[in-house]
């Protein structure tokens, strides 16, 4: 548009693209100049804003899910929703996806995650117990065990767990591979150890215990691990130069599934970094913290450590 003077007719036509930010610089400037002196076109601007908002109003995710699961009863809400679904191809398509998902609820699908199970270092006292089982391991269609066999099995599980906990406590007290657990008695005592400082009692209802001395396998040290109401703050330092390029920190659960990945590592200077992780990434149990960096296009583990999260009493 070479002529930079815009009349009301052109202004009304161009307003949608002015609002979505795709109008060229010259056209935008001409339109703004016109609206400054034209109250009618300023009203057109407001009407166009309304139309944009109206056309951008969709069924909520909650409505689509409830509708797909037959939870929207007959009435004004259902009528409005169905009228909208007749007009809006996007919502109609999303509804189809939800209905397809709903229909899978009662199918047996062989779906596996792509995340491989992480190796758990043998030196750590909190190794995943090979004897751990849960009532949900067995398919309901398998033949059930006899009561006496179940009793022996439970006894063996309990004995194994006690042995592992005892070994872990012994190793931890040695201080050779474990951070110092405060043996002050009260459960709310703070945990102190070489390089580890944890607050006495956690506002979040969790207590985080470093299972190792805090040394990452490949040369980093956990300086501080603080659990707050909604986040865990992790401060660590690399023994040598920090990794070059972007680094990521993963939180993995006891079976190696990634619970959280973050790339927002705040440098504190002197090879120290800080990461804030959501508290939801710290369920109770054994977790692995892993720092990885990019090396020639692939992610390489730079540092790794295991921690144990317990519910604070």
């Amino acid at each position, binding site marked *: 548009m070479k002529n930079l003077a815009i009349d009301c007719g052109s202004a009304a036509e161009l307003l949608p693209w002015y609002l979505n930010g*795709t109008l060229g610089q010259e056209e935008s400037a001409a339109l703004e100049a016109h609206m400054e002196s034209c109250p009618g076109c300023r009203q057109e601007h407001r009407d166009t804003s309304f139309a944009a908002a109206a*056309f951008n109003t969709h069924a909520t995710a909650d409505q689509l899910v409830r509708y797909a*699961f037959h939870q929207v009863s007959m009435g004004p809400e259902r009528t409005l929703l169905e009228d909208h679904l007749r007009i809006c191809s996007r919502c109609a398509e999303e509804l189809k996806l939800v209905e397809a998902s709903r229909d*899978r609820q009662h199918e047996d699908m062989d779906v596996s995650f792509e995340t491989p199970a992480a190796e758990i270092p043998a030196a750590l006292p909190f190794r995943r117990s090979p004897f751990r089982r849960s009532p949900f391991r067995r398919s309901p269609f398998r033949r059930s065990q006899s009561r006496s066999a179940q009793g022996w099995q439970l006894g063996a599980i309990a004995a194994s767990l006690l042995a592992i906990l005892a070994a872990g406590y012994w190793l931890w007290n040695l201080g050779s591979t474990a951070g110092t657990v405060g043996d002050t008695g009260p459960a709310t005592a703070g945990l102190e150890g070489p390089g580890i400082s944890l607050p006495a009692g956690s506002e979040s209802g969790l207590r985080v215990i470093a299972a190792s001395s805090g040394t990452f396998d490949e040369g980093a040290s956990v300086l501080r691990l603080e659990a707050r109401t909604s986040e865990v703050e992790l401060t660590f330092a690399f023994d040598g130069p920090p990794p070059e390029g972007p680094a990521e920190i993963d939180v993995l659960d006891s079976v190696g599934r990634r*619970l959280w990945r973050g790339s927002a590592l705040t440098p504190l200077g002197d090879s120290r970094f800080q990461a804030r992780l959501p508290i*939801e990434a710290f369920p109770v149990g054994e977790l692995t913290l892993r720092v990885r960096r990019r090396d020639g296009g692939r992610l390489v583990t730079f540092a790794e450590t295991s921690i144990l999260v317990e519910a604070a009493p």
Partner: protein
Amino acid sequence: MTEIPPTSSRDSDLVQLFLVGDGEAIREVDTWISQAAWSFRQRLSEDWEDILQEIRLELTRLLRRGSFRGDSSLKTYLWRVVNHTCIDRLRRRSRWRWQGLDDLDHRGVLAEGARQGVRNEFRDLMLRVVSQTSKDCHKLWQLVLEGYSYREMSQQLGVSEATLRVRVLRCRKKAVAVRDNLLEESAGV
């Protein structure tokens, strides 16, 4: 009295085991998550791992806060959470989103410091307005809202820029006219 589903004790056991990090419980829930989200996989393939992570976090948050009350089975509850999260994720990828309703209060439709109830009414008004326009109008405006320039839209739709701009304007005028009618009806005029 609410009828308690027969699987409620199994479900609550599974919730507790999941929250304490039991491997088998996590695996079972993870399998359900994958099954429930599978229909979205093609649309969300680039962010698949992130989405599964987001779902796990959301589910953990909801279960911790006691949101699952046993009104349905845990599996159905999880299915709904997964679908919610996937739809929200699809929508976040939209190129352009309207930020708020307050800017639209040029006719005083919203009270100052609009309460949620009033905002819901305004939202219903918007849905009613749109439902009385045509499907073609809705399609045109979705392209505008997705951030296409009029040149891009003209090429995509195979119409001249002038024709396109007039059509979009007519749709806008229709929406405003429907709004005014509905407001007058509700005011009893």
